[in-house]
């Protein structure tokens, strides 16, 4: 912490002083790392990854919200009309183009993270001009596939990793 520079001396560029200063800087930098690393998610947070949700009771047209990693996840049991509308939308109309097939491989179910991609509010389901999701904070509008259609949000609602376990269960995470 001390030996970095010896000012105003002809020996300033002396190799010994430079080497000592360099070693000191390396040591200080190494000591800073744990202080940064400790603020990252800890092992308990990383481990609490997956949840299992019973979806047998969700009626068509109903959206259920569950908590996953501290965030809301929307599980939407879509009606045939919603599926058709979502699949028929041309990609050219989308600010963040993505096919409904890629977002909902099992077309009956749309599973998205319920966090508006603008500034993190929770959108309201079955709302808005596209009968999808509407964010009350700054007016972003998503369609029934969770894709951004109007408003300040830059991208579509995120899709969490999930797997269907049989007909009535889905594992998220």
């Amino acid at each position: 912490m001390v030996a970095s520079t010896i000012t105003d001396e002809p020996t300033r560029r002396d190799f010994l002083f430079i080497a000592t200063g360099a070693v000191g800087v390396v040591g200080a930098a190494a000591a800073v790392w744990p202080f940064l690393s400790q603020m990252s998610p800890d092992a308990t947070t990383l481990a609490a990854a997956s949840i299992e949700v019973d979806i047998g009771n969700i009626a068509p047209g109903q959206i259920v919200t569950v908590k996953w990693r501290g965030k809301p996840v929307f599980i939407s049991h879509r009606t045939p009309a919603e599926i058709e509308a979502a699949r028929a939308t041309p990609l050219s109309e989308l600010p963040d183009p993505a096919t409904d097939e890629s977002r909902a491989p099992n077309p009956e179910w749309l599973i998205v993270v319920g966090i508006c991609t603008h500034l993190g509010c929770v959108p309201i389901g079955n709302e808005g001009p596209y009968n999808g999701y509407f964010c009350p904070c700054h007016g972003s509008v998503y369609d029934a596939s969770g894709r951004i259609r109007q408003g300040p949000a830059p991208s579509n609602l995120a899709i969490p990793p999930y797997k269907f376990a049989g007909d009535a269960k889905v594992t998220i995470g």
Partner: protein
Amino acid sequence: MSLFPRKMRVGAGVALALIAMLVLAASGTKGLASDDAATNAPAGSHDVKTPKRQAWSFYGPFGKFDQAQLQRGLQVFREVCATCHSLKSIAFRDLAAPGGPDFSEAQAKALAADYKIKDGPNDAGDMFERPGRLSDYFPWNFPNAQAARAAFGALPPDLSVIAKARTYHRGFPLFLVDPIIQYQEHGADYIYALLTGYARSEDPNWNEYFPGHKIAMPNPLSDGAVDYADGSPKTVRQYAKDVSAFLMWTAEPKLEERKAIGFRVLVFLCVFAGLLYFVKRKIWARVHDDAGGTH
């Protein structure tokens, strides 16, 4: 003489002493008695035997856990200790973490799934049981401490940090030597001694290492009680050794990381201190030269 001034010789001496301490600690268990259970030295006025130091793979500056031993120790814990004791700080994911028993994630998952974990409430408001996951902690056979106390007459302590919560007195002057030779395994030695210290077959609650000799836990181990798959001896001593090592790991799961980082930090600091010493000499040489002195 003038080539190596006094302070430099002192510094070299200190550095040599540090290296000697590391070497001493690294080879410290070589001279120790191996598996023989105990010395007969009576300690203090209570006639309780002093545990004998055991050779542990995790001792010393480069000590590491023996994964096979930890896996055997886990087996002893699950088949014997877990009947009564909890292990509430340990999650199944820890079994697959670096520096531990080194199970694969799939093995740890399968092991977790063996356990029924109480969860809930579900949408109907009911608690339910489901197979364990990696993020779950070892469950206990008892719903609460009162239930365990009612069953046994005494509360079996949680074993998560027991290897750091138990010790024995080394006395003067050994307690001054311990930090130099890095002896920190008092707890593991005590547990090993206790588990092998049921010396009276007619009284399963008499232990020669327990203060007062009357211990609430009756002799838990017997030869052949746990069936090892790796061909290790199925003896009380082997069980005691393995489960003591396992409990040292549960108490100090970051031991390997700590010692590995510690060695690098010490090497760095020694280099840095050495450089600073020469910088200091160089700078102070100016005033000594001015004065014509040689201090």
